[in-house]
């Protein structure tokens, strides 16, 4: 198939950037979206032009590295699908495709479609972990955890930290990401010791990073490639207020 691509090109963090149009011919429907970009880049290199920079790693939908807004939707039109798992059969001959980076003050563009998601790392550093003494790992079955709790923790832990929730949110809010991390540990006994301070510190770090606030559109939930529920945001809201009232955060 033949495609017309409108891709955000930006030479560096301080460049203003603009959408550039490329015509790409003979795209196979079996290619993944990233492979299609690889082919475009090969053509650009052959012509002596600078290839399009984009993030990617596992290319099997589990690492959270890839991510771009494809025709106005993070990771493209398919639900619960990362950009690397999106295939060109989703598109048809003659389609125009807009490809833009995640847009958020807290995700500055480094180059073309590559953004700096260090703000997510700094939120995690504020409490997205449990503190345990080192030494021999205890037996996995020492702490009994009910199946519903384990499932709920897993639902939240499915977050791959790709940032699609921020990209989809009209307010560039990171609440689904942060809520998934808080909700994951809050569902497990190991997470209880630091539950209060975790909720407080991670929530305040979101503000420090310049993410917006949630207005409950649930665009994040719809865009999440792992289908994480906005229910975790409600739980985070409750944990935050409990922490504020309890004074332990």
């Amino acid at each position, binding site marked *: 198939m033949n495609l017309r691509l409108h891709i955000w090109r930006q030479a560096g963090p301080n460049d203003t950037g603009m959408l550039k149009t490329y015509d790409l011919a003979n795209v196979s429907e079996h290619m993944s979206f990233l492979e299609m970009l690889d082919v475009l880049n090969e053509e650009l290199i052959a012509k002596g032009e600078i290839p399009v920079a984009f993030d990617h790693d596992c290319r099997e939908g589990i690492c959270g590295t890839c991510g771009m807004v494809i025709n106005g939707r993070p990771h493209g039109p398919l639900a619960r699908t990362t950009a690397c798992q999106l295939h060109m059969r989703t598109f048809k001959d003659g389609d125009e495709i807009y490809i833009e980076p995640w847009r*958020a003050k807290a995700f500055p563009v480094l180059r073309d479609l590559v953004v700096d998601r260090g703000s997510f790392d700094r939120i995690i550093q504020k409490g997205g972990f449990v503190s345990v003494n080192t030494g021999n790992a205890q037996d996995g079955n020492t702490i009994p955890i009910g199946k519903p709790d384990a499932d709920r923790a897993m639902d939240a832990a499915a977050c791959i930290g790709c940032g699609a929730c921020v990209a989809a949110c009209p307010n560039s809010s990171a609440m689904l990401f942060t809520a998934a991390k808080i909700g994951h540990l809050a569902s497990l006994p190991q997470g209880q010791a630091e539950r209060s301070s975790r909720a407080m510190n991670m929530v305040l770090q979101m503000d420090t990073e310049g993410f917006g606030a949630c207005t409950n559109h649930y665009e994040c939930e719809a865009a999440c490639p792992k289908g994480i529920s906005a229910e975790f945001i409600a739980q985070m809201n409750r944990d935050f207020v409990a922490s504020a009232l309890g004074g332990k955060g």
Partner: protein
Amino acid sequence: MKAFGDIWRSNLFQKWLMAITGLFLVLFLLGHLSGNLLVFLGQAHINEYAHGLRTMGHGAVLWGARIGLLTFFILHVASAITLSRRNRQARPQKYARVEARSSTLASRTMLYSGLLLITYVLYHLAHFTWGAVHAQHYAQATFILPSGELVPDVYTMVVKSFSEPLITVLYLLSMVMVGLHLNHAIASAFQTLGVTNRRIVPLVRTIGPALSILIALGFSAVPLAIILGLVKI
């Protein structure tokens, strides 16, 4: 432990403030609406009710409610302005193309419907509370209650006002705004307050929008009935 100021300024606390004040304002609207509907029971009922509101606890109840409402209103608007500004700053560069998946007209226009509602509330107070606009209808008429007391005739004021098509149209349009705002607001407030119960959440997401329509229709019923001549002096 974090300082109170840090918590107060946080996005989540501001959201929480907006949700809780908003829910109180919805409760007020329900009370207001039930009072309004007394118009349908006749002149004596609504005049007696209005007189009762003014004199309950020698006016202390009315003034307490007014101060409370004003406080909630100011906190609600202030948190909305704070959050909207931050939300805008959080995305300095817009997308060339956006395809919404789950947001609604109501959810995307909360700021605008809210701002329009502020102007409406001012107009509405100027009309029925202060008598600063449409003063020709403002409670000059009096009414003798069954108890023999001489009180302002709220019923006549309302009927005369809504007999003017322009006033009725302004109020009906404002009620569309109320409905639009509440359509997203009610269920949204429960989410912000942290309700995760899987039996309650679907209920709230159904009842919230339904209640918004009922409130808008309920308030519209009075001016509509008057302009259609179903309620008259």
